[in-house]
C-alpha cells in the first residue's frame, strides 16, 4: 500500500493476493492511488501512512 499511495501513485495497478488466514484469492485494482475494484466484496483494505 505504501507503493500504491507513494511511488506508484500515478499508475494503474493490479494486486493479486490471498487471505493470510486461508486460501481465498484477493484481486484489487487501483487507479492513481484510488481503489477501483476489489474482489471479493468482503475484502478489507487498510491504507495507512496518511
Amino acid at each position, binding site marked *: 500500500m*505504501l*507503493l500504491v499511495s507513494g*511511488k*506508484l501513485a500515478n*499508475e*494503474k*495497478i*493490479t*494486486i*493479486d*493476493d*490471498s487471505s*493470510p*488466514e*486461508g*486460501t481465498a*484469492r484477493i484481486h484489487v485494482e487501483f487507479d492513481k492511488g484510488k481503489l477501483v475494484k476489489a474482489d471479493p466484496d468482503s475484502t478489507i483494505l487498510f491504507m495507512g501512512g496518511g
Partner: protein
Amino acid sequence: MPNIKSGRRLVSLVICSILVFAANSMAAQPKGKLTTSDKKVIDFLVNDWGKDYSVTSVDIAMDAVGVKQSEETRFRIGSYIKAHPELHEVIRRWGWVTLVLTPDEKLIARVLINTEREGKPNPSVSEIAKAVGTGEGQTNSGLAMLERYEIIKRDNAAGGPSYTVVPRYLKWEPRLDFLFHTVTLERGRRFNTN
C-alpha cells in the same frame, strides 16, 4: 602369480569404480546445470530484487525475459537459488521458498499446512484443488513441485496418495508463510512485493 592376479583384479575394480563414478557425475551434471536462458532469469532477478520492495519470483522473471514456462526450467533455476543464498540479501531475508514457488503452489502448501496445524485429516487432491481453485492436473503438478523441493512428503497409503508437510514448514510463523503479493502495472511491469 596369485599376487599378480589379485593385483590385476584390484586395478580392474578401481578402473570400473572410476568409470561408474564418472558416468554418474556426467549424468547428474546437465540436470542441475544452468542454461544461458536460466542465467538470464537469475540475472534479471538479482537486478530486480529489492527495487520497490521486490521479492519477485522465478515464474514472473521467466515471463519478463521471454523464457517459456516449464516446470523443469523453473525447478532448475529455483534449486540454484535455494543453493545460493549468497546471490542476494532478498534470498537470505525472505527465504528461497518465497522466490521459487508460484502462487498456486504456495496456496497448495497452505492448504496442507493449515490442515495439519488444525489436526484435521489429510485432504485429498480434489479437496486441495477445490480449496485453491485449481484443476486436479494443476494441483497434482503443484504437489509434485512441493515434493521435489522437500516441502511435503507423499504417502502412498491405501485409497490414494496423501501428503504431509515436512515439520520445519509447520513451525513457521502462521499467517506469514507461503504468501504472495503480485503487483502488475498497466505499463507492463510485474513483480512480487513483500
